[in-house]
Protein backbone atom coordinates (compact mmCIF):
# COMPACT_ATOMS: atom_id res chain seq x y z
CA UNK A 1 0.00 0.00 0.00
CA UNK A 2 1.30 3.40 -0.95
CA UNK A 3 1.47 5.49 2.09
CA UNK A 4 3.92 8.31 1.84
CA UNK A 5 5.47 8.90 5.19
CA UNK A 6 5.76 12.53 4.36
CA UNK A 7 2.96 15.07 3.94
CA UNK A 8 2.19 15.97 0.36
CA UNK A 9 0.98 19.44 -0.60
CA UNK A 10 -2.71 19.30 -1.33
CA UNK A 11 -4.08 20.62 -4.54
CA UNK A 12 -7.81 21.06 -4.87
CA UNK A 13 -8.90 19.43 -8.08
CA UNK A 14 -12.04 17.87 -9.32
CA UNK A 15 -12.28 14.19 -8.37
CA UNK A 16 -10.64 11.65 -10.64
CA UNK A 17 -12.73 9.21 -12.53
CA UNK A 18 -12.40 6.45 -9.97
CA UNK A 19 -13.27 8.03 -6.67
CA UNK A 20 -12.79 5.91 -3.61
CA UNK A 21 -16.05 4.32 -2.63
CA UNK A 22 -17.34 5.71 0.60
CA UNK A 23 -20.68 5.16 2.30
CA UNK A 24 -22.87 8.19 2.85
CA UNK A 25 -22.35 9.58 6.29
CA UNK A 26 -24.43 12.71 6.47
CA UNK A 27 -23.76 13.34 10.14
CA UNK A 28 -20.14 12.27 10.08
CA UNK A 29 -17.82 14.95 11.34
CA UNK A 30 -15.12 13.72 8.94
CA UNK A 31 -14.51 16.35 6.25
CA UNK A 32 -14.14 14.87 2.77
CA UNK A 33 -11.71 16.77 0.58
CA UNK A 34 -11.09 16.15 -3.14
CA UNK A 35 -8.46 13.49 -3.82
CA UNK A 36 -4.86 14.57 -3.74
CA UNK A 37 -3.02 14.99 -7.05
CA UNK A 38 -1.14 11.83 -7.91
CA UNK A 39 2.36 12.35 -9.30
CA UNK A 40 3.49 9.76 -11.82
CA UNK A 41 7.18 9.44 -12.67
CA UNK A 42 8.08 8.04 -16.08
CA UNK A 43 11.69 7.06 -16.54
CA UNK A 44 12.97 6.02 -19.99
CA UNK A 45 16.02 6.95 -22.07
CA UNK A 46 13.86 7.02 -25.17
CA UNK A 47 12.09 10.41 -25.45
CA UNK A 48 9.60 8.99 -27.91
CA UNK A 49 8.56 6.30 -25.52
CA UNK A 50 8.28 8.90 -22.74
CA UNK A 51 6.05 11.10 -24.83
CA UNK A 52 3.84 8.18 -25.81
CA UNK A 53 3.34 7.15 -22.19
CA UNK A 54 2.79 10.74 -21.02
CA UNK A 55 0.04 11.19 -23.57
CA UNK A 56 -1.51 7.90 -22.59
CA UNK A 57 -1.48 8.44 -18.84
CA UNK A 58 -2.26 12.17 -18.52
CA UNK A 59 -5.57 13.01 -16.88
CA UNK A 60 -7.22 15.10 -14.23
CA UNK A 61 -5.79 14.64 -10.76
CA UNK A 62 -2.50 13.48 -12.15
CA UNK A 63 0.81 15.18 -12.77
CA UNK A 64 3.16 13.40 -15.12
CA UNK A 65 6.87 13.91 -14.53
CA UNK A 66 9.35 12.50 -17.04
CA UNK A 67 13.00 11.60 -16.63
CA UNK A 68 15.41 10.40 -19.31
CA UNK A 69 17.88 8.75 -16.99
CA UNK A 70 18.15 7.09 -13.60
CA UNK A 71 20.01 10.15 -12.22
CA UNK A 72 17.31 12.43 -13.54
CA UNK A 73 14.66 10.25 -11.84
CA UNK A 74 16.48 10.37 -8.51
CA UNK A 75 16.66 14.18 -8.74
CA UNK A 76 12.87 14.33 -9.12
CA UNK A 77 12.45 11.97 -6.19
CA UNK A 78 14.39 14.38 -4.02
CA UNK A 79 11.87 17.10 -4.81
CA UNK A 80 8.58 15.27 -4.60
CA UNK A 81 6.78 12.04 -3.86
CA UNK A 82 5.12 9.84 -6.46
CA UNK A 83 2.09 7.63 -6.56
CA UNK A 84 3.85 5.27 -8.95
CA UNK A 85 7.10 5.08 -10.89
CA UNK A 86 7.38 3.52 -14.34
CA UNK A 87 10.99 2.58 -14.77
CA UNK A 88 12.72 1.40 -17.92
CA UNK A 89 15.06 -1.47 -17.15
CA UNK A 90 17.59 -0.80 -19.86
CA UNK A 91 19.15 2.59 -19.59
CA UNK A 92 22.75 3.66 -20.15
CA UNK A 93 24.94 4.30 -17.08
CA UNK A 94 22.46 3.93 -14.23
CA UNK A 95 20.22 1.06 -15.24
CA UNK A 96 16.66 0.41 -14.06
CA UNK A 97 17.56 -2.14 -11.36
CA UNK A 98 20.27 0.12 -9.89
CA UNK A 99 17.91 3.08 -9.93
CA UNK A 100 15.22 0.98 -8.24
CA UNK A 101 17.68 -0.13 -5.59
CA UNK A 102 18.57 3.51 -4.87
CA UNK A 103 14.88 4.49 -4.72
CA UNK A 104 14.19 1.64 -2.30
CA UNK A 105 17.18 2.70 -0.25
CA UNK A 106 15.61 6.02 0.66
CA UNK A 107 13.16 5.92 3.48
CA UNK A 108 10.89 8.44 1.87
CA UNK A 109 10.43 6.45 -1.33
CA UNK A 110 10.82 2.96 0.09
CA UNK A 111 7.18 2.10 -0.44
CA UNK A 112 6.60 3.89 -3.75
CA UNK A 113 5.40 1.26 -6.21
CA UNK A 114 7.68 0.69 -9.18
CA UNK A 115 6.57 -0.84 -12.46
CA UNK A 116 9.45 -2.03 -14.61
CA UNK A 117 9.25 -1.53 -18.33
CA UNK A 118 11.26 -4.01 -20.28
CA UNK A 119 11.81 -5.43 -23.71
CA UNK A 120 9.86 -8.50 -24.61
CA UNK A 121 12.98 -10.64 -24.70
CA UNK A 122 13.73 -10.07 -21.05
CA UNK A 123 15.03 -13.18 -19.39
CA UNK A 124 13.11 -14.65 -16.48
CA UNK A 125 16.19 -14.09 -14.34
CA UNK A 126 15.94 -10.36 -15.01
CA UNK A 127 12.29 -10.38 -14.11
CA UNK A 128 13.09 -12.04 -10.77
CA UNK A 129 15.87 -9.52 -10.21
CA UNK A 130 13.34 -6.75 -10.84
CA UNK A 131 10.96 -8.12 -8.24
CA UNK A 132 13.83 -8.63 -5.82
CA UNK A 133 14.77 -4.93 -5.96
CA UNK A 134 11.19 -3.95 -5.27
CA UNK A 135 9.16 -3.98 -8.45
CA UNK A 136 5.44 -4.38 -7.96
CA UNK A 137 4.82 -5.15 -11.57
CA UNK A 138 6.47 -5.83 -14.89
CA UNK A 139 5.38 -4.61 -18.30
CA UNK A 140 6.87 -5.70 -21.56
CA UNK A 141 7.42 -3.45 -24.54
CA UNK A 142 5.67 -2.83 -26.71
CA UNK A 143 2.90 -2.57 -24.14
CA UNK A 144 -0.81 -2.58 -24.74
CA UNK A 145 -2.02 0.94 -23.87
CA UNK A 146 -5.16 -0.24 -22.02
CA UNK A 147 -3.15 -2.52 -19.79
CA UNK A 148 -0.59 0.16 -19.00
CA UNK A 149 -3.37 2.64 -18.32
CA UNK A 150 -5.30 0.20 -16.10
CA UNK A 151 -2.25 -0.74 -14.06
CA UNK A 152 -1.22 2.86 -13.49
CA UNK A 153 -4.80 3.76 -12.57
CA UNK A 154 -4.79 1.05 -9.92
CA UNK A 155 -1.74 2.59 -8.29
CA UNK A 156 -3.04 6.13 -8.60
CA UNK A 157 -6.28 5.02 -6.91
CA UNK A 158 -4.34 3.16 -4.24
CA UNK A 159 -2.30 6.27 -3.60
CA UNK A 160 -5.35 8.50 -3.40
CA UNK A 161 -7.29 6.10 -1.19
CA UNK A 162 -4.25 5.73 1.02
CA UNK A 163 -4.00 9.48 1.25
CA UNK A 164 -7.67 9.76 2.13
CA UNK A 165 -7.34 7.08 4.79
CA UNK A 166 -4.41 8.98 6.24
CA UNK A 167 -6.40 12.23 6.21
CA UNK A 168 -9.39 10.59 7.82
CA UNK A 169 -7.34 8.93 10.47
CA UNK A 170 -5.79 12.32 11.18
CA UNK A 171 -9.26 13.84 11.44
CA UNK A 172 -10.43 10.98 13.62
CA UNK A 173 -7.37 11.51 15.75
CA UNK A 174 -8.26 15.17 16.08
CA UNK A 175 -11.86 14.29 16.92
CA UNK A 176 -10.70 11.75 19.46
CA UNK A 177 -8.41 14.30 20.97
CA UNK A 178 -11.27 16.76 21.15
CA UNK A 179 -13.47 14.11 22.72
CA UNK A 180 -10.73 13.41 25.22
CA UNK A 181 -10.57 17.11 25.97
CA UNK A 182 -14.35 17.28 26.30
CA UNK A 183 -14.33 14.31 28.64
CA UNK A 184 -11.55 15.87 30.68
CA UNK A 185 -13.45 19.15 30.82
CA UNK A 186 -16.62 17.36 31.84
CA UNK A 187 -14.78 15.39 34.48
CA UNK A 188 -13.31 18.61 35.78
CA UNK A 189 -16.78 20.19 35.86
CA UNK A 190 -18.13 17.16 37.68
CA UNK A 191 -15.34 17.41 40.19
CA UNK A 192 -16.13 21.09 40.66
CA UNK A 193 -19.76 20.25 41.27
CA UNK A 194 -18.77 17.51 43.65
CA UNK A 195 -16.51 19.94 45.42
CA UNK A 196 -19.20 22.60 45.76
CA UNK A 197 -21.62 19.93 46.91
CA UNK A 198 -19.17 18.89 49.56
CA UNK A 199 -18.76 22.50 50.58
CA UNK A 200 -22.51 22.94 50.65
CA UNK A 201 -22.88 19.82 52.76
CA UNK A 202 -20.21 21.08 55.10
CA UNK A 203 -21.95 24.45 55.33
CA UNK A 204 -25.23 22.69 56.01
CA UNK A 205 -23.63 20.57 58.67
CA UNK A 206 -22.11 23.64 60.21
CA UNK A 207 -25.50 25.33 60.19
CA UNK A 208 -27.01 22.26 61.76
CA UNK A 209 -24.44 22.08 64.51
CA UNK A 210 -24.81 25.83 64.96
CA UNK A 211 -28.53 25.52 65.50
CA UNK A 212 -27.88 22.48 67.68
CA UNK A 213 -25.60 24.52 69.95
CA UNK A 214 -28.12 27.34 70.05
CA UNK A 215 -30.75 24.85 71.01
CA UNK A 216 -28.61 23.43 73.79
CA UNK A 217 -26.54 26.31 75.03
CA UNK A 218 -28.62 29.42 74.47
CA UNK A 219 -31.68 28.20 76.31
CA UNK A 220 -29.83 27.15 79.46
CA UNK A 221 -28.84 30.66 80.66
CA UNK A 222 -32.37 31.88 79.97
CA UNK A 223 -33.74 29.10 82.07
CA UNK A 224 -31.34 30.05 84.83
CA UNK A 225 -32.27 33.74 84.66
CA UNK A 226 -35.92 32.93 84.82
CA UNK A 227 -35.45 30.28 87.48
CA UNK A 228 -33.32 32.32 89.83
CA UNK A 229 -35.41 35.45 89.39
CA UNK A 230 -38.35 33.32 90.40
CA UNK A 231 -36.51 31.90 93.38
CA UNK A 232 -35.42 35.38 94.42
CA UNK A 233 -38.99 36.56 94.23
CA UNK A 234 -40.07 33.77 96.55
CA UNK A 235 -37.09 34.18 98.81
CA UNK A 236 -37.12 37.96 99.15
CA UNK A 237 -40.69 38.88 98.36
CA UNK A 238 -41.27 40.42 101.75
CA UNK A 239 -38.09 42.47 101.56
CA UNK A 240 -38.98 43.91 98.17
CA UNK A 241 -41.27 46.83 97.47
CA UNK A 242 -43.56 46.95 94.44
CA UNK A 243 -40.85 48.42 92.25
CA UNK A 244 -38.41 45.69 93.19
CA UNK A 245 -40.97 43.02 92.51
CA UNK A 246 -41.77 44.61 89.14
CA UNK A 247 -38.06 44.60 88.22
CA UNK A 248 -37.83 40.92 89.02
CA UNK A 249 -41.00 40.29 87.05
CA UNK A 250 -39.47 42.07 84.05
CA UNK A 251 -36.31 39.97 84.26
CA UNK A 252 -38.40 36.80 84.30
CA UNK A 253 -40.58 37.88 81.42
CA UNK A 254 -37.65 38.99 79.29
CA UNK A 255 -35.91 35.69 79.80
CA UNK A 256 -39.12 33.90 78.83
CA UNK A 257 -39.54 36.11 75.79
CA UNK A 258 -35.96 35.40 74.73
CA UNK A 259 -36.67 31.71 75.16
CA UNK A 260 -39.64 31.99 72.82
CA UNK A 261 -37.56 33.90 70.28
CA UNK A 262 -34.84 31.26 70.37
CA UNK A 263 -37.40 28.51 69.92
CA UNK A 264 -39.05 30.37 67.04
CA UNK A 265 -35.73 30.93 65.35
CA UNK A 266 -34.89 27.25 65.69
CA UNK A 267 -38.29 26.35 64.25
CA UNK A 268 -37.64 28.67 61.33
CA UNK A 269 -34.27 27.09 60.73
CA UNK A 270 -35.84 23.65 60.94
CA UNK A 271 -38.48 24.56 58.36
CA UNK A 272 -35.64 25.39 55.99
CA UNK A 273 -33.67 22.23 56.66
CA UNK A 274 -36.29 19.55 57.17
CA UNK A 275 -36.86 17.14 54.33
CA UNK A 276 -39.92 17.96 52.28
CA UNK A 277 -42.33 15.05 52.25
CA UNK A 278 -44.67 14.66 49.29
CA UNK A 279 -48.21 13.47 49.77
CA UNK A 280 -51.66 14.30 48.51
CA UNK A 281 -53.12 16.79 50.97
CA UNK A 282 -56.81 17.50 51.34
CA UNK A 283 -56.78 21.19 52.24
CA UNK A 284 -60.40 21.18 53.47
CA UNK A 285 -59.57 18.48 55.97
CA UNK A 286 -56.44 20.37 56.93
CA UNK A 287 -58.34 23.62 57.55
CA UNK A 288 -60.92 21.81 59.67
CA UNK A 289 -58.16 20.28 61.77
CA UNK A 290 -56.54 23.67 62.20
CA UNK A 291 -59.83 25.27 63.26
CA UNK A 292 -60.22 22.52 65.84
CA UNK A 293 -56.70 23.16 67.04
CA UNK A 294 -57.38 26.89 67.41
CA UNK A 295 -60.70 26.43 69.19
CA UNK A 296 -59.29 27.59 72.49
CA UNK A 297 -58.63 31.00 70.91
CA UNK A 298 -61.90 31.19 69.00
CA UNK A 299 -64.62 29.75 71.17
CA UNK A 300 -65.09 32.90 73.24
CA UNK A 301 -65.19 35.03 70.11
CA UNK A 302 -67.88 35.88 67.58
CA UNK A 303 -66.42 34.81 64.28
CA UNK A 304 -68.28 34.28 61.04
CA UNK A 305 -66.36 31.63 59.11
CA UNK A 306 -66.65 31.30 55.35
CA UNK A 307 -64.94 28.18 54.17
CA UNK A 308 -64.79 27.59 50.44
CA UNK A 309 -64.17 24.27 48.78
CA UNK A 310 -60.42 23.85 48.62
CA UNK A 311 -58.52 21.69 46.16
CA UNK A 312 -56.33 18.74 46.89
CA UNK A 313 -52.64 19.55 46.52
CA UNK A 314 -49.36 17.68 46.73
CA UNK A 315 -47.04 18.67 49.53
CA UNK A 316 -45.76 18.12 53.02
CA UNK A 317 -48.85 17.71 55.24
CA UNK A 318 -47.18 18.89 58.45
CA UNK A 319 -45.67 21.94 56.79
CA UNK A 320 -48.85 22.92 54.98
CA UNK A 321 -50.68 22.52 58.24
CA UNK A 322 -48.27 25.02 59.78
CA UNK A 323 -49.08 27.45 56.96
CA UNK A 324 -52.78 27.32 57.79
CA UNK A 325 -52.17 27.46 61.53
CA UNK A 326 -50.14 30.63 61.09
CA UNK A 327 -52.48 32.34 58.62
CA UNK A 328 -55.71 31.47 60.42
CA UNK A 329 -54.27 32.21 63.87
CA UNK A 330 -53.17 35.59 62.51
CA UNK A 331 -56.66 36.26 61.17
CA UNK A 332 -58.12 35.33 64.55
CA UNK A 333 -55.58 37.49 66.37
CA UNK A 334 -55.88 40.59 64.22
CA UNK A 335 -59.69 40.58 64.21
CA UNK A 336 -59.76 40.62 67.99
CA UNK A 337 -60.95 44.28 68.13
CA UNK A 338 -63.93 43.41 65.90
CA UNK A 339 -67.19 42.77 67.60
CA UNK A 340 -67.94 40.27 64.89
CA UNK A 341 -64.99 38.94 62.97
CA UNK A 342 -65.31 37.65 59.41
CA UNK A 343 -62.69 35.15 58.31
CA UNK A 344 -62.78 33.55 54.92
CA UNK A 345 -60.68 30.71 53.55
CA UNK A 346 -61.11 30.17 49.84
CA UNK A 347 -59.47 29.46 46.56
CA UNK A 348 -59.00 30.94 43.13
CA UNK A 349 -58.13 28.43 40.48
CA UNK A 350 -58.68 30.22 37.18
CA UNK A 351 -56.48 32.24 34.90
CA UNK A 352 -55.91 35.83 36.00
CA UNK A 353 -58.04 37.09 33.13
CA UNK A 354 -60.89 34.90 34.32
CA UNK A 355 -61.05 36.47 37.76
CA UNK A 356 -64.68 37.27 38.21
CA UNK A 357 -67.36 37.02 40.77
CA UNK A 358 -67.68 33.32 40.13
CA UNK A 359 -64.10 32.73 41.15
CA UNK A 360 -64.62 33.92 44.66
CA UNK A 361 -66.38 31.52 46.93
CA UNK A 362 -69.79 32.52 48.10
CA UNK A 363 -70.93 34.82 49.39
CA UNK A 364 -69.43 36.84 46.57
CA UNK A 365 -68.06 40.20 47.41
CA UNK A 366 -69.55 42.95 45.30
CA UNK A 367 -67.38 43.81 42.30
CA UNK A 368 -66.39 47.00 44.00
CA UNK A 369 -65.44 45.19 47.19
CA UNK A 370 -62.14 46.68 48.37
CA UNK A 371 -61.01 43.21 49.39
CA UNK A 372 -61.43 41.81 45.90
CA UNK A 373 -59.78 44.66 44.07
CA UNK A 374 -56.23 44.22 45.34
CA UNK A 375 -56.47 40.51 44.59
CA UNK A 376 -57.40 41.19 41.00
CA UNK A 377 -54.58 43.63 40.77
CA UNK A 378 -52.06 41.14 42.06
CA UNK A 379 -53.39 38.33 39.90
CA UNK A 380 -52.82 40.57 36.92
CA UNK A 381 -49.19 40.96 37.88
CA UNK A 382 -48.37 37.40 36.88
CA UNK A 383 -47.43 36.37 40.35
CA UNK A 384 -49.25 33.18 39.61
CA UNK A 385 -48.80 30.70 36.82
CA UNK A 386 -51.99 29.90 35.06
CA UNK A 387 -52.24 26.40 36.40
CA UNK A 388 -51.48 27.10 40.04
CA UNK A 389 -53.90 26.70 42.87
CA UNK A 390 -54.35 29.92 44.81
CA UNK A 391 -55.61 29.80 48.39
CA UNK A 392 -56.38 32.88 50.44
CA UNK A 393 -57.20 33.67 54.03
CA UNK A 394 -59.09 36.92 54.34
CA UNK A 395 -60.21 38.78 57.44
CA UNK A 396 -61.90 42.02 58.39
CA UNK A 397 -59.34 42.76 61.08
CA UNK A 398 -57.04 45.70 61.67
CA UNK A 399 -55.25 45.21 58.35
CA UNK A 400 -51.96 46.89 57.56
CA UNK A 401 -50.45 49.65 55.50
CA UNK A 402 -49.48 48.29 52.06
CA UNK A 403 -46.42 50.52 52.28
CA UNK A 404 -44.92 47.96 54.67
CA UNK A 405 -46.22 44.85 52.91
CA UNK A 406 -42.71 43.80 51.91
CA UNK A 407 -41.71 43.56 55.57
CA UNK A 408 -44.48 41.17 56.52
CA UNK A 409 -42.66 37.99 55.58
CA UNK A 410 -39.29 38.93 57.10
CA UNK A 411 -37.95 37.08 60.13
CA UNK A 412 -38.94 38.88 63.36
CA UNK A 413 -40.57 41.68 61.35
CA UNK A 414 -43.73 43.01 62.88
CA UNK A 415 -46.15 45.76 61.91
CA UNK A 416 -47.73 45.90 65.36
CA UNK A 417 -46.20 46.40 68.77
CA UNK A 418 -46.20 43.52 71.22
CA UNK A 419 -48.52 45.58 73.40
CA UNK A 420 -51.20 45.67 70.70
CA UNK A 421 -50.80 42.12 69.42
CA UNK A 422 -48.51 39.51 70.89
CA UNK A 423 -46.13 37.58 68.67
CA UNK A 424 -42.51 37.26 67.64
CA UNK A 425 -42.79 37.83 63.90
CA UNK A 426 -41.75 34.37 62.80
CA UNK A 427 -45.09 32.98 61.62
CA UNK A 428 -45.28 34.61 58.20
CA UNK A 429 -41.57 34.02 57.60
CA UNK A 430 -42.29 30.32 58.11
CA UNK A 431 -45.31 30.53 55.80
CA UNK A 432 -43.19 32.06 53.08
CA UNK A 433 -40.40 29.56 53.53
CA UNK A 434 -42.76 26.60 53.39
CA UNK A 435 -44.61 27.87 50.32
CA UNK A 436 -41.36 28.66 48.53
CA UNK A 437 -40.10 25.18 49.26
CA UNK A 438 -43.27 23.86 47.65
CA UNK A 439 -42.59 25.91 44.53
CA UNK A 440 -45.33 28.45 45.23
CA UNK A 441 -45.54 32.14 46.02
CA UNK A 442 -47.07 34.09 48.83
CA UNK A 443 -48.35 37.65 48.99
CA UNK A 444 -50.55 39.90 51.05
CA UNK A 445 -52.97 42.78 50.59
CA UNK A 446 -54.31 44.94 53.32
CA UNK A 447 -55.92 48.22 54.20
CA UNK A 448 -55.33 49.90 57.54
CA UNK A 449 -58.38 49.05 59.61
CA UNK A 450 -59.90 47.44 56.51
CA UNK A 451 -58.81 43.82 56.79
CA UNK A 452 -56.09 41.75 55.21
CA UNK A 453 -55.88 38.98 52.64
CA UNK A 454 -52.99 36.55 52.63
CA UNK A 455 -52.70 34.38 49.54
CA UNK A 456 -50.39 31.67 48.40
CA UNK A 457 -50.09 29.60 45.27
CA UNK A 458 -49.22 25.92 44.99
CA UNK A 459 -48.67 23.75 41.95
CA UNK A 460 -51.83 21.85 41.09
CA UNK A 461 -51.87 18.19 42.10
CA UNK A 462 -52.18 16.88 38.55
CA UNK A 463 -49.11 18.80 37.50
CA UNK A 464 -46.62 16.61 39.24
Amino acid at each position, binding site marked *: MTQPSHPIPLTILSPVSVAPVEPDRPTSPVVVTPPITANILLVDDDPGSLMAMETLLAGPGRTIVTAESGQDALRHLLQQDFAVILLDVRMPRLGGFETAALIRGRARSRHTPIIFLSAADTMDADVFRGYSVGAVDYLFKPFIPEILKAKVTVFVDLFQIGDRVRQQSEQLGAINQKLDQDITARKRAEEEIKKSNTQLEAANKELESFSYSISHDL*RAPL*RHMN*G*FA*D*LLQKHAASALDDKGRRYLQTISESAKQ*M*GILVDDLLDFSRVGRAELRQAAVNLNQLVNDVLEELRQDTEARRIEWKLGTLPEVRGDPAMLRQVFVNLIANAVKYTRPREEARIEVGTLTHQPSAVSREDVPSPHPAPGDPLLRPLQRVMGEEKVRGDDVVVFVRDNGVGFDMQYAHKLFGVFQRLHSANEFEGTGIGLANVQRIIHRHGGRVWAEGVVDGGATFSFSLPRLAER
Partner: protein
Amino acid sequence: MAELKRILLAEDNRKDVELTLTALDEHHLANEVVVVNDGAETLDYLYRRGKYATRTEINPAIVLMDLKMPKVDGLEVLRTIKGHHDLKTIPVVILTSSREEKDLVESYQLGVNAYVVKPVDFQKYIDAVKQLGAFWALINEPPPGSLRKEKEARRSAVS
Protein backbone atom coordinates in the same frame (compact mmCIF):
# COMPACT_ATOMS: atom_id res chain seq x y z
CA MET B 1 -23.42 4.42 102.97
CA ALA B 2 -23.64 8.02 101.81
CA GLU B 3 -24.43 7.19 98.18
CA LEU B 4 -27.46 5.12 98.86
CA LYS B 5 -29.90 7.39 97.04
CA ARG B 6 -32.79 6.76 94.73
CA ILE B 7 -32.15 9.37 92.07
CA LEU B 8 -28.96 9.75 90.05
CA LEU B 9 -28.81 13.23 88.53
CA ALA B 10 -26.22 13.55 85.76
CA GLU B 11 -25.84 17.26 85.08
CA ASP B 12 -22.72 19.33 84.50
CA ASN B 13 -24.26 22.76 85.09
CA ARG B 14 -24.34 23.73 88.77
CA LYS B 15 -27.20 26.17 88.19
CA ASP B 16 -29.29 23.47 86.59
CA VAL B 17 -28.42 21.14 89.47
CA GLU B 18 -29.63 23.75 91.94
CA LEU B 19 -32.86 24.42 90.05
CA THR B 20 -33.53 20.70 89.67
CA LEU B 21 -32.89 20.03 93.34
CA THR B 22 -35.16 22.94 94.25
CA ALA B 23 -37.90 21.42 92.14
CA LEU B 24 -37.37 17.92 93.55
CA ASP B 25 -37.46 19.30 97.05
CA GLU B 26 -41.12 20.06 96.61
CA HIS B 27 -41.60 16.32 97.07
CA HIS B 28 -38.83 16.20 99.67
CA LEU B 29 -36.77 14.25 97.18
CA ALA B 30 -33.71 16.51 97.19
CA ASN B 31 -32.01 14.32 99.75
CA GLU B 32 -32.55 11.30 97.54
CA VAL B 33 -30.34 12.66 94.81
CA VAL B 34 -26.75 11.79 93.94
CA VAL B 35 -25.28 14.35 91.58
CA VAL B 36 -22.64 13.39 89.04
CA ASN B 37 -21.13 16.09 86.86
CA ASP B 38 -20.30 14.44 83.57
CA GLY B 39 -20.81 11.29 81.56
CA ALA B 40 -17.62 9.63 82.75
CA GLU B 41 -18.61 10.12 86.39
CA THR B 42 -22.07 8.78 85.61
CA LEU B 43 -20.55 5.59 84.24
CA ASP B 44 -18.15 5.36 87.20
CA TYR B 45 -21.11 5.52 89.54
CA LEU B 46 -23.15 2.95 87.67
CA TYR B 47 -20.22 0.56 87.19
CA ARG B 48 -19.02 1.16 90.77
CA ARG B 49 -15.61 2.29 89.64
CA GLY B 50 -13.15 4.92 90.89
CA LYS B 51 -14.51 6.87 93.81
CA TYR B 52 -17.75 4.91 93.60
CA ALA B 53 -16.02 1.55 93.84
CA THR B 54 -17.35 1.02 97.34
CA ARG B 55 -20.99 1.93 96.78
CA THR B 56 -23.61 -0.76 97.39
CA GLU B 57 -24.79 -3.00 94.62
CA ILE B 58 -28.25 -1.51 94.74
CA ASN B 59 -28.98 0.67 91.70
CA PRO B 60 -30.80 4.01 91.66
CA ALA B 61 -34.50 3.89 90.87
CA ILE B 62 -34.05 6.48 88.15
CA VAL B 63 -31.29 8.26 86.24
CA LEU B 64 -32.09 11.85 85.27
CA MET B 65 -29.51 12.81 82.67
CA ASP B 66 -28.54 15.84 80.62
CA LEU B 67 -27.48 15.18 77.01
CA LYS B 68 -24.68 17.65 76.60
CA MET B 69 -22.06 16.83 79.17
CA PRO B 70 -18.26 17.00 79.20
CA LYS B 71 -16.07 13.94 78.50
CA VAL B 72 -18.80 11.42 77.69
CA ASP B 73 -22.11 12.85 76.48
CA GLY B 74 -25.53 11.67 77.53
CA LEU B 75 -26.25 9.65 74.41
CA GLU B 76 -23.02 7.72 74.87
CA VAL B 77 -23.86 7.02 78.51
CA LEU B 78 -27.35 5.94 77.45
CA ARG B 79 -25.88 3.60 74.84
CA THR B 80 -23.60 2.04 77.45
CA ILE B 81 -26.34 1.64 80.06
CA LYS B 82 -28.85 0.13 77.66
CA GLY B 83 -26.21 -2.19 76.22
CA HIS B 84 -25.26 -3.60 79.64
CA HIS B 85 -27.10 -6.67 80.83
CA ASP B 86 -27.36 -5.53 84.45
CA LEU B 87 -27.77 -1.79 83.97
CA LYS B 88 -30.22 -1.78 81.09
CA THR B 89 -33.22 -2.20 83.39
CA ILE B 90 -32.53 1.10 85.17
CA PRO B 91 -35.02 3.70 83.92
CA VAL B 92 -33.25 6.62 82.26
CA VAL B 93 -34.90 9.98 81.68
CA ILE B 94 -33.19 12.48 79.40
CA LEU B 95 -33.58 15.97 80.81
CA THR B 96 -32.22 18.42 78.29
CA SER B 97 -32.39 21.89 76.78
CA SER B 98 -32.49 20.53 73.27
CA ARG B 99 -35.56 19.50 71.39
CA GLU B 100 -33.51 18.61 68.34
CA GLU B 101 -35.23 15.82 66.52
CA LYS B 102 -32.09 13.78 65.98
CA ASP B 103 -31.47 13.70 69.74
CA LEU B 104 -35.03 12.59 70.32
CA VAL B 105 -34.86 9.88 67.69
CA GLU B 106 -31.50 8.59 68.80
CA SER B 107 -32.46 8.59 72.48
CA TYR B 108 -35.54 6.52 71.81
CA GLN B 109 -33.65 4.20 69.52
CA LEU B 110 -31.18 3.61 72.32
CA GLY B 111 -34.07 2.76 74.63
CA VAL B 112 -34.57 5.87 76.74
CA ASN B 113 -37.54 5.62 79.13
CA ALA B 114 -38.58 9.26 78.82
CA TYR B 115 -37.35 12.45 77.17
CA VAL B 116 -38.10 15.82 78.75
CA VAL B 117 -37.20 19.24 77.34
CA LYS B 118 -36.44 21.67 80.15
CA PRO B 119 -38.79 24.62 79.77
CA VAL B 120 -37.31 28.11 80.01
CA ASP B 121 -40.25 29.14 82.17
CA PHE B 122 -39.24 28.23 85.71
CA GLN B 123 -42.73 27.40 86.90
CA LYS B 124 -43.12 24.94 84.05
CA TYR B 125 -39.66 23.61 84.80
CA ILE B 126 -40.52 23.07 88.45
CA ASP B 127 -43.73 21.34 87.45
CA ALA B 128 -41.93 19.09 84.97
CA VAL B 129 -39.20 18.03 87.39
CA LYS B 130 -41.69 17.59 90.24
CA GLN B 131 -43.81 15.30 88.13
CA LEU B 132 -40.76 13.39 86.93
CA GLY B 133 -39.48 12.92 90.46
CA ALA B 134 -42.90 11.93 91.75
CA PHE B 135 -43.50 9.44 89.01
CA TRP B 136 -40.13 7.75 88.72
CA ALA B 137 -38.97 7.90 92.33
CA LEU B 138 -42.31 7.48 94.09
CA ILE B 139 -45.04 6.06 91.89
CA ASN B 140 -43.17 3.82 89.50
CA GLU B 141 -42.13 0.41 90.76
CA PRO B 142 -38.42 0.19 89.87
CA PRO B 143 -36.84 -3.05 88.62
CA PRO B 144 -35.54 -5.53 91.20
CA GLY B 145 -32.17 -4.57 92.58
CA SER B 146 -33.03 -0.88 92.73
CA LEU B 147 -33.42 1.17 95.82
CA ARG B 148 -37.07 1.22 96.77
CA LYS B 149 -38.93 4.05 98.38
CA GLU B 150 -39.21 3.95 102.15
CA LYS B 151 -42.43 4.26 104.02
CA GLU B 152 -41.43 7.71 105.13
CA ALA B 153 -40.97 8.92 101.60
CA ARG B 154 -44.25 7.37 100.55
CA ARG B 155 -46.03 9.28 103.31
CA SER B 156 -44.45 12.56 102.31
CA ALA B 157 -45.34 12.01 98.70
CA VAL B 158 -48.96 11.44 99.52
CA SER B 159 -49.25 14.45 101.79
